[in-house]
């Protein structure tokens, strides 16, 4: 199965209201055996994408393939191999942990002993006759993960699974997912609005912002990209000469009457300024501009816990 695509969307678009696109031509591609961190600020379209993938929203435009099969034609087959947790825990509050799993055990056709196994896995095997409504948010979240893991799915789709967990719970969940991935080869698609969280567990990353998939690639590719993103804008009275002066030393581009070069550091900015002034050019402004992606990283990292 290596290198085959477990999830593939093709020009996936979706709008809740006419005129405003929640998702805009998303081409997502998740390789078998990977942990795909789906990153984006709140409201970027993460949950919408995940809901589309498991059929909770009716697809409007584009195609969705899971396990290489068109989702809508093979809904049941695909769902049998998929475990999911979308948004807040979905549990029957009047039932115990065991009973909650029992509800799904038959549907997924699992053996009885599997319930004990997953409860132990998420450390809820001692809750006995305690009703789920008496659980803490962290316990509820862990039980929801247990529901998703019950049938040992080949694909796990988790929407912000560490939401509401304490730091310890976050680490445990992360380790659990890594272990699932390592030992069972489970492909995991996990969304988050926290870049550091994704960096700690994902092998691949997709970044979504305002419904558009801005970046998709491996974790090292992402880290490479992060460094390159800031650009220096230089505005002067003489564009051609400015370019002449700078082109020997820098990779330059220009747009309208502005020269763009990759940002390095403040000392370089000062040196550029000096060089231009000494050549008799009037420098109107020099400032570094974050690209959209960089701004996005700022947003994501600013939400650090």
């Amino acid at each position: 199965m290596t290198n085959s695509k477990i999830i593939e969307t093709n020009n996936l678009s979706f709008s809740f209201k006419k005129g405003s696109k929640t998702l805009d031509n998303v081409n997502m591609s998740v390789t078998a055996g990977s942990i795909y961190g789906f990153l984006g600020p709140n409201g970027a379209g993460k949950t919408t994408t995940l809901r589309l993938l498991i059929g909770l929203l009716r697809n409007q435009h584009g195609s969705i393939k899971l396990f290489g099969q068109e989702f809508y034609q093979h809904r049941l087959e695909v769902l049998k191999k998929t475990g999911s947790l979308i948004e807040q825990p979905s549990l029957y509050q009047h039932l115990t942990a065991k009973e909650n799993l029992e509800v799904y055990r038959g549907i997924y056709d699992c053996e009885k002993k599997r319930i004990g196994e997953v409860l132990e896995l998420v450390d809820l095997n001692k809750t006995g006759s305690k009703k789920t409504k008496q659980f803490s948010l962290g316990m509820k979240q862990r039980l929801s993960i247990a529901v998703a893991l019950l049938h040992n799915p080949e694909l796990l789709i988790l929407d912000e699974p560490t939401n509401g967990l304490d730091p310890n719970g976050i680490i445990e969940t992360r380790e659990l997912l890594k272990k699932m991935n390592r030992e069972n080869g489970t492909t995991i698609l996990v969304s988050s609005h926290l870049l550091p969280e994704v960096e700690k567990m994902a092998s691949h990353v997709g970044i979504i912002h305002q419904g558009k998939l801005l970046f998709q690639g491996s974790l090292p590719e992402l880290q490479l990209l992060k460094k390159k993103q800031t650009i220096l804008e230089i505005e002067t009275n003489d564009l051609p000469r400015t370019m002449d002066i700078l082109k020997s030393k820098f990779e330059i581009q220009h747009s309208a009457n502005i020269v763009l070069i990759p940002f390095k550091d403040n000392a370089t900015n000062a040196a550029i300024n000096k060089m231009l002034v000494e050549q008799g050019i009037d420098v109107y402004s020099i400032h570094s501009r974050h690209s959209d992606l960089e701004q996005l990283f700022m947003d994501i990292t600013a939400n650090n816990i």
Partner: protein
Amino acid sequence: MNFITSTRAELLKTKRSAAFWLSVLGALFIPAIFFLMYYFKPEVFIPMLKEDPWRIHFIRGWQSLSAFLLPMFIILICSLIPQIEFKNNTWKQVFASPQSYGNIFFSKFLTIHLMILFCFLLFTLFMIFSALLVNLFNNKFSFSDNSIDFAALFKLIFKTYVSILGISAIQYWLSLRFKNFIAPIGIGLGFLITSLIIMQWEHIFKVPYAFPILTLSSAMNNAGKWLENHELNSIGYFVVFTFIAFLDLKFRKEKG
């Protein structure tokens, strides 16, 4: 097989739920009141129940039930079972599990009907039990000297069940539509009260919320027919609204 699995899951969800307790308490309510009435006012009820005590006992029991409590119970149970999913935010998990839309829809609907039949069964047992119990305290009652006409009782229950089929489908649809449980209950209650007001209307046999009362009056008249016109209408409403509700669920844009 899959359908049985889905239904089994649905039944598990009703464990300790409000729907379960409503069925038990709903069934207990009238027999308990009857017991108290018979026990404290034997001078009124012994003569009343002198001839054919079981028949009168059951007719009076179903009469108290059918006019208002039974349709109300149907409205509530049809709302409470889908509410289990709304309240717990579990629709999404249900729709993300490998069950066909048909299984999801019909297993829940079957669960509602099993709850209704469970309530009918309990009601009948509690009615028998309350009569026997009062007879134990006061042997002037003649329940123990008479036998129950189970065939007639079964017919009454069967006809009552048929009479609520239409309401159940309409209410199930409404309850799947609205996340807020007040909406289907309010609408159902509105229909029910309207039906009670227009009871004299010559087209009342077309108004589903009036069917339980119509069934009861026809049963009392000993008309003998297994299915009256309004009961056939009830089956018609049931088929049409079940179909509408299923299509509505299947083709809904947002699920869960």
